């Protein structure tokens, strides 16, 4: 697997590069801004791009815009956007054009090397990754009428993992449940929250996040 890393903090992107290399992921290029990132991706599309959200020249949301451009121009390239703080708004913008092969993670997650490597693999494979912090913000939000309270604790865990973009199989592994139990939980959640059942994981992420944001 080949990835491109874009971050203007040299120390960080080199460290991340070492981590990915150690996990057997080839780092095709390291760049410091969105323009070079787009040029690299266009010249030689990798399997995934890891992009810092704030990059020169304005240090605001260059990475986010570049990620959306990559998704539009090269749907087969997964994009993992990293940020020092997370905003559900940014997550939703990123997912607006489809949740396939998109990720949005807090930079702090690098403390757990395995988690970052896993996230890169998932977006490269077309999956979606939403930072638990985003999901926690959305789930924990105060609501006047809160249908989430109707869910059992276990169902709430399953809901959060779905919102993070996990597949049923990943949820099984996470919660040490059998596939049948997870499926039952998912069905129950969809019924209780009055969501249309969707067989495919990407649309499931979107549906759950949209529900949480509404």
């Amino acid at each position, binding site marked *: 697997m080949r990835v491109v890393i874009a971050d203007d*903090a040299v120390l960080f992107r080199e460290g991340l590069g070492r981590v990915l290399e150690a996990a057997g992921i080839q780092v095709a290029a390291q760049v410091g801004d969105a323009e070079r990132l787009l040029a690299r991706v266009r010249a030689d599309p990798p399997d995934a791009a890891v992009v810092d959200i704030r990059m020169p020249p304005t240090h605001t949301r260059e990475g986010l815009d570049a990620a959306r451009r990559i998704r539009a121009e090269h749907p087969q390239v997964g994009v993992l956007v990293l940020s020092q703080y997370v905003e559900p708004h940014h997550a939703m913008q990123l997912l607006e054009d489809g949740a396939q092969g998109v990720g949005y993670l807090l*930079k702090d997650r690098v403390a*757990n090397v*395995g988690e970052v490597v896993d996230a890169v693999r998932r977006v490269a494979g077309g999956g979606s990754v939403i930072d638990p912090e985003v999901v926690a913000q959305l789930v924990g939000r105060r609501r006047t009428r809160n249908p989430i309270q109707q869910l059992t604790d276990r169902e709430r865990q399953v809901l959060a993992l779905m919102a993070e973009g996990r597949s049923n199989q990943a949820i099984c592994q996470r919660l040490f449940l059998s596939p049948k139990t997870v499926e039952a939980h998912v069905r129950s959640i969809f019924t209780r929250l009055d969501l249309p059942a969707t067989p495919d994981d990407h649309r499931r992420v979107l549906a759950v996040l949209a529900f949480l944001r509404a």
Partner: protein
Amino acid sequence: MSPRLRLALALTALAAGLVNLALLLRAGGDRPGPLAYLLVAIVGVSWSFVAAGLVAWSRRPSNRTGALMVAVGLAYSLNGLLLGGVTLLRAPLAFALWFLVATLPEAVLAHLIAVFPDGRATTRLQRVFLVVNYATTVPLALVQLLLVDPASLGCPACPDDLLGFGGRHPYGDAVLAVSDLSLAVVAALLLWIVATRWRRAPGPRRRSLAPVALVGVVLVVVYMTGQTLKAVLPADPPPALQVGFDMAIVTLLVLWPLAFLAGLARTRLDRSAVGDLAVELSEAQPPGRLEQALARALHDPTLELAYWLPDRHAFVDAAGRPVQLPAGGHDRAVTILRHDGDPVAALLHDAALDDDPALVRAVAATARMTIQNERLQAEVRAQLEEVRASRARIVEFGDSERRRVERNLHDGAQQRLVNLSLALGIARSRVGTTSEKEIAVALDEAAAELRLALAELRELARGIHPVILSEAGLGPALTSLAERSSIPVTIIAIPTGRLPSRVEETAYYVASEALANAAKHAHATAVTISARRQNRDLQVEVSDDGVGGANSDGSGLRGLADRVAALDGHLRIHSPAGQGTRITAELPCGW
């Protein structure tokens, strides 16, 4: 007008009149006919207008009414002379000459009426009228002489081809019809102007128009009655009656200049307006109304009132906007009102008001208290405007400070901590897979990142608020600032003991901002800081040897000025290009 010119004009009119009378005696002294009446009338009217005009002219030199009246009189004289000449010489060329200027006296009279009592055209309508009015004199007469049979112009003895232009006049009737029409247009325009003026004139101005209007109306009535009688009576009216009407008209014409003179005198003596103003000002005035009241009292709708702001050394209007005084042009004049020799306000008015400086002074004296009041209000409004702007700048400054802090956190300490996480993550992932030595390298990297993060957090916290300032006071804080500076700083003086915390904070802020500017923009190599008590103030002075030319409107220095102003202090920036920068703040300490 010089006395010599006045004398010359008087003598000219006198001489022309005497010649006219001589012509009258020569033409038909033994048998006074219509011509005789005409000449007597002309001489009387001419002398009357010239005499009254000279009086008006000398009383109100800058009002053109007097000059216009003299012009009317002289035009009548000229007309009489030419008429006498025509009668004596019976030469076609003399007739042509007379005919050209025959309507000039009435045209000048119409001009006088149209612009009375200002003496100048002030509206567009008046200007249009004047053009049309004079177009019906010499130019129209010339056209008539060229295109109309002289016989139908009143010269049966003249040859067809008066000006040697070929003798046929195919368009004669049409030209005469157009001439009559244009005269009617002139008359209608004049009536319209007079009626509008009367309708719009405020009371005092009507009083000046009244004598002129009265004589004018009587003139028209007498003339119309005579014409009606002529038309109605089966036979010609008896000669006595005819002479009576003519005499009445001549008498009225001779009296008319006196009416003009009286009207002019009434505008001059329009002191009632001052009384009206006093009454009006005794009532509470909304801001800006004073200007209108003064404009009414002085009959000058263009009048502007500007207040002097000693702080700014500038005149402003009631809303606090700057006003530029006219540089002494032709139309605008300025009267500066003073109190104890200092300017208080300025009246910008029409130059015509300079005719009567006493009236302007009387009006200004009446309004003095109110003007003082409004001036103070204008001053307060200007200050309020300044405070509003500074409040907006302070809010904006606070916001931009927060953005700066966020940015510093994000790019500094936060980034270090992310790197630290990464280093720790790498170290942890190596446990059991590589040598302890390699893990130790990764842990050292993590420790280095942590030290940097802590240093940056400390620096940032100090930038937000230096703890030493609140704990130990301004002196130690300035010393610490100097020790950490990237440019060598010499401290000349620091106050002992504590000052009010707001003063200490502002003083520290002045010093640190000036120091930052010296390092960032001025490329200075040395800075001196002094902070000493001076009377009841704390004076903070920061000088550098940099490039100078600091922009006092830049956001940094503007923010300093606002902070200093918030303590009622003063900030001075002396920064000539190439000669370093000296920033001085005087902060009242209230002890």
